[in-house]
Structure formats: structure tokens, C-alpha cells
């Protein structure tokens, strides 16, 4: 009837697992029983997350890896398999939205464009490619890509980030179909609303513009990721799970939540 949500000693890599949503995901997976590897450019926040995972009674490891460097990405995955024997779950969460915020499109340099794609799209591809090597052999694996509503709608301040995140959605589709008979599920969580993290604290967005009337909390991404990482979602692949407080269903009328006629 109901498949298992528990992650039962599964080995999960969470990129960008040191802060914000990545950290919340790492802890949620750990609470569901997984052992966690967190990877990112800066080691200190990762070590803090790893310590919290261990407090939950799970094993954890912090690995420093620059997502734009495929050699470092390959090594991070190899280290995971060396330490834990396998890799069952990959959560591609690392990314940076804020860095190009507020820059007029015509002022974006070649380098900023290239870098934005590297961090927010290419890095995800590097990690998918790296874990697939093992998951294909295992004939089992769960890949969850974290994308954004800016990959679905035309938000002018996200000309690089949005394009990269749209690319992540499409990569999810393609890999999901490519590996559908190989025991690997590839899905994406599309965060299409403002979530309260350190990174987004600097942005002033009125929560009333969101149909639900509040920002999302990082902890809310956890259970959805656990579900997509578990057997309970075995027949889902190549798809999007949009979590957005109603934003995407509310595109046709300004402030349509406000009671008028």
C-alpha cells in the first residue's frame, strides 16, 4: 500500500549542504535514516552540518569541492564511495542566486554569464555525471535537483540564474528519461517562491505578494526531498515538484488573492 519513506542507511550527497536549504535537506535526510556527505566550496559550514548529522546518530562527512571543477566533483563522489561503499542519493542544491542580482542585463559581462552557468547548471551536470558512474553499476539511485521558479517564468533580474535553473529542469527531464530503465530516478524540486535563508535575508520582498502570505522555511524542503529520495517515489521520474505557496498557479491576475469582485 504505502511504500517506505525511510532512508535506512542510504548514502546521500548534498551539495551546498552547509547552509540554508542545503543544510535543512541534509538534516531531513539524516532524520529519515541516511548517512550524509555534504560538499561545497567552504569547509566550515559543512563541518557544522556534519556535526549536527552525527548528533542525530547518523554518519557524516564534509568534503570540500568547487562545483565548477569537475575533477574536484569526481573526487568528492569517489571519496564518498570510498568511505561509505556506495552512493544512493544525490541532492544538487549548491548554487548562487544573489551574485548577479541588481545588475542591468546589458552590464552583465561574459565572465559573469559564464560563471553563473557554471555554478548553477554545469556543476549539477558534473555531479550527475559523477554519481551516475556508480548508480548505473548499482542499478539504483535517486537524484534530486533543486531548481527555481526563475527557471519557469521571466524574471528580468535572473537572466543568468534563471537560464541555468531552466537548464537544471531540462537536465532533470533528459536524465530521468535516459536512466528510466536503469533504476535511477531523477526529479527536481522547483522552489518558486521566496524562502527564508541567510542568502535571501538581504532581499526585501513583501510576503503579501505570495498567495500563501508568507515566505517558505528551509525546513519545508526537507520532507519533499526525503519523499523523492525514498522508495515511495519509485514511479516518479523526469518531473517537477513545484513548492511555491501558490505562486505558479496565480500568474493571470495581479494580486488575485486580494478579495475583490
Amino acid at each position: 500500500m504505502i511504500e517506505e519513506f525511510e532512508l535506512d542507511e542510504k548514502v546521500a550527497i548534498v551539495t551546498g549542504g552547509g547552509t540554508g536549504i542545503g543544510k535543512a535537506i541534509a538534516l531531513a535526510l539524516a532524520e529519515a535514516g541516511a548517512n550524509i556527505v555534504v560538499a561545497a566550496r567552504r569547509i566550515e559550514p559543512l563541518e557544522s552540518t556534519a556535526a549536527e548529522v552525527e548528533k542525530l546518530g547518523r554518519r557524516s562527512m564534509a568534503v570540500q569541492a568547487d562545483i565548477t571543477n569537475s575533477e574536484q566533483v569526481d573526487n568528492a563522489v569517489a571519496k564518498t564511495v570510498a568511505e561509505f561503499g556506495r552512493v544512493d542519493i544525490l541532492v544538487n542544491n549548491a548554487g548562487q542566486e544573489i551574485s548577479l542580482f541588481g545588475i542591468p542585463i546589458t552590464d552583465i559581462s561574459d565572465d559573469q554569464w559564464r560563471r553563473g552557468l557554471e555554478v548553477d547548471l554545469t556543476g549539477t551536470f558534473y555531479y550527475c555525471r559523477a554519481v551516475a558512474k556508480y548508480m548505473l553499476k548499482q542499478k539504483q539511485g535517486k537524484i534530486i535537483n533543486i531548481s527555481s521558479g526563475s527557471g519557469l517564468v521571466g524574471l528580468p533580474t535572473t537572466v543568468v540564474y534563471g537560464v541555468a535553473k531552466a537548464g537544471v529542469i531540462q537536465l532533470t527531464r533528459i536524465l530521468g528519461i535516459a536512466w528510466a530503465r536503469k533504476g535511477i530516478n531523477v526529479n527536481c524540486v522547483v522552489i518558486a517562491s521566496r524562502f527564508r535563508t541567510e542568502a535571501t535575508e538581504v532581499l526585501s520582498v513583501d510576503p503579501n505578494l505570495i498567495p500563501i502570505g508568507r515566505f517558505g522555511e528551509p525546513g519545508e524542503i526537507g520532507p519533499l526531498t526525503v519523499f523523492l529520495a525514498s522508495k515511495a517515489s519509485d514511479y516518479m521520474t523526469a518531473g517537477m515538484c513545484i513548492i511555491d505557496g501558490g505562486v505558479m498557479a496565480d500568474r493571470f491576475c495581479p494580486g488575485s488573492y486580494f478579495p475583490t469582485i
Partner: protein
Amino acid sequence: MAKIPKTFMLQDKTAIVVGTAENLSRHLAFALAEVQAHVFFVSSDEETVKKATEEAYELGYKITGTSGDVTNALEVERISKKAFEELGKVDILVNNAIVEFGKPFLEMSDREWKDVIETNVNPAYLWCKTVGRHMLARRNGRIINICSGLAVSAMPNRSAYCASMGAILQLTKALAIEWVRQGIRVNAIGLGWFSQKDASETKGELDPLLRYIPMGRLGHPSDLGGLLVYLASDISDYVTGQIMFVDGGIINRP
């Protein structure tokens, strides 16, 4: 017994599951009951309800229910009164009163068109009205409408069915936005090709279809429980107005 982290449990929650004479509704009712929800199961088929409640009793799950015409306003009124009395309150509503139908568009009679639309859309309309009213008064509720890939894509000879699925999807989004500030969440689950049985069946005539489905198999009723439980629980509070597909990849295939 499935192992389930605490966050996905639905103890102290109550649910109404509405279905027709097919197996999937039964599995949806059991999925919720298995995580300790008290379920009131409504089906147009008396046998289905009887078997479900008996089996639930054996297994120690809380499923009660009744049968009736789920497309009829007066019947829905009568049955929902019974449900409210038994459950006390309603946290979750699952609409799965869906009937298949196929005919070339021009061969379909006015009557058949009307029947498909009414059979597939009216129950959701009626149950969302009666239960929605109750949920609005409590400023709390979860509605999950079972839908199909045919709400966003199409196939020949299914015009009425596709139209009805599109209607369900849009009703889902419209109610989600209308009621989001009153604590109610409304989402849809989009099914791919599903079997009524749990075991894989590979009849010869299914082979072209199985080759076409990226995952190479039909969906089983047990494939739906997880997503239903997620959408029925408080942990998905930020998800509303959405459809998530359980389809072996079909809606995204080339």
C-alpha cells in the same frame, strides 16, 4: 509494515476518500489509514466499500464508509452528513471519482459527452463544495484531486475524458488560489498508465505501451500512496495549486 518517519504520519487526521467502482480509490484509502488517519471511504460501488472496511478492520486500520451516487448533489449531501458525524471533522479530501471513456469525437453522442463530464467533474465539484465549506470554517484542510497525464497531453478518441481531466486540473488550481489564505491546500496527482493490480502484468497486447513508458512498466496502486500521504499532511503546507505526476516518466518523454 512500512517504515515511515514520524513527520509523514497522519494520526489524529481524518479523511474522506471518494471513488467509483475501481481499485485505486481503495488503495488511496488504505494508504492514508496505514499512516493512522481515520478514513471515511465513499464509493459508488457497495462491494468495494464493504470489502475495504472489512479488510481494514482485520488489519487494525480505521476505515469506515458507505456507498452512494457520488455525482448526485442530494446524495453527496446525505453521505457527507454521515461522514461529518462519524469523523467529527474533516482534514483531508481525496477526489478519485473518475471513469474512463473512449470514442471518436464525432461518434460520441451529446448524452455521452455530458455523462463523461458530469461523472468525472461533478463529484469533485460537489465534494469540494460540501467539504470545502467545512474546511473554510475551520481554516484548515487538504484536498487532493486524482487526475491524469491526459489533463496536460492528449490521445485520440478521448476528447471527453481529456476535457474532464483538464477541468479537474484547473479546478484544483482555482480553488488553491481562492482558498490559500484560509488555510486550505489543493493539489492534484497526475497518473500515468496504471494497472489495478499490484503485480507486474505483461500481457502481449501491452508490450507497445510498456515499451513506450520510460520506466517500462505500468504504475501499481502502491506507487501512489507516498505522494498522497505527503500532500495530505501538514508538512506540505507550502505546496498548493500544483500537479505532480506519478507516471514512470511518460509525460516528459520525447
